[in-house]
């Protein structure tokens, strides 16, 4: 794979949320408002890129049987760092995200990328993969949050538009509905693209 593929994989073809379908729990929980979604994305990007680089850097030091505990140590170190930093430099955001920051430890996107990618690839590729997946996560969670915030709370970026929003969109069912449709769209698009490439051959 070229470096371009490493980078692009997480954005569309291997989008962590819509295609690999990992990390759904925080995605659904946080995507009620655009501000929260962006804050969460930044925290996830920091942890994902950091742990990808670290896991890749120490992959020669990591015996196969020990890899999961070692991934967890690396990831939780980054998560705790992110949590403290948010508390110190962005207390409002830290308040809004609450328990979901510490819960990044068990976010499948991060351990998934460590296991499936960083453990087997160079530091540089892992960095690109981390950035790509972070962008993929950012895009999806922002789109979901935009849709849910607009229809469920009648606002965009905390500015009101609709007076009588459909409350269901901001509750859990609205999250499932939105993410379901997006998954459908994404898979349709990916399949069509694969079809076109296949036809060309």
């Amino acid at each position, binding site marked *: 794979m070229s470096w371009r593929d490493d980078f692009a994989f997480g954005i569309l073809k291997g989008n962590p949320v819509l295609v690999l379908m990992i990390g759904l729990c925080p995605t659904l929980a946080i995507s*009620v*408002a655009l501000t929260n979604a962006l804050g969460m994305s930044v925290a996830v990007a920091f942890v994902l890129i950091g742990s990808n680089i670290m896991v890749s850097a*120490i992959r020669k*030091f*990591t*015996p196969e*049987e*020990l890899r999961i*505990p*070692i991934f967890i*140590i*690396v990831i*939780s*170190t980054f998560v*705790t*760092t992110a949590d*403290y*930093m948010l*508390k*110190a*430099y962005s*207390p409002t955001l830290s*308040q809004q995200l*609450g*328990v979901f920051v510490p819960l990044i430890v068990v976010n499948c996107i991060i351990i998934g990328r460590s296991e499936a990618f960083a453990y087997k690839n160079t530091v540089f590729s892992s960095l690109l993969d981390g950035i790509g997946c972070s962008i993929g996560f950012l895009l999806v969670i922002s789109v979901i949050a935009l849709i849910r915030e607009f229809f*469920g*709370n009648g606002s965009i970026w905390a500015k009101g538009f609709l007076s009588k*929003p459909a*409350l269901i969109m*901001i*509750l859990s069912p609205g999250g499932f509905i939105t993410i379901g449709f997006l998954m459908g769209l994404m898979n349709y698009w990916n399949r069509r693209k694969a079809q076109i490439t296949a036809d060309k051959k």
Partner: protein
Amino acid sequence: MKSLGKKIVDYIFRLTLLCAIASAALAWVYLETKPRIELEEKRRLFLARKEVLPQAEKFEEKIIKEKETYIQGYDENDKPVGKIAETRKRGYAALIKILVGVDDYNKITKVKILDEMETPGLGAKIKEEKFLNQFPGKTIEELKLKKDKGTIDAVTGATISSRVVIEAVKEGLSKFTKK
């Protein structure tokens, strides 16, 4: 092939080494961020108290009796200008922390939600002025939902959260009224 014993020792060594490095890194981050976190926390608390008692410039924690405290507010001339009770009650999702400000006659002047984790769009609306502005001036007897024959309009779809807030306000107020 390494023997099992050697393998175990090797693994223990690797994990210990990694944990030591991770702990050292975290200790450093903790020490670096701690002063700022404490500062932010203090600032947040001060601003919240100030919002409840706008005339006050200084706050002092006072003890009523064991484990029961309230906050006395003073203006710039050290004159007492009102009191604040901080109460916490289990809400629909998690603890709701509330500040209740009262004037010298133990009348509610303002209620503020300090922390909550209620459902966004429903219970979280207890933070809105529309709901909280119903509290000032009310007596303990009046502090009930309209559907419980009181005077407070509940937040639509969030009766439980609304009741919890009312209970917490009552508890805060009773700190000053009961003798």
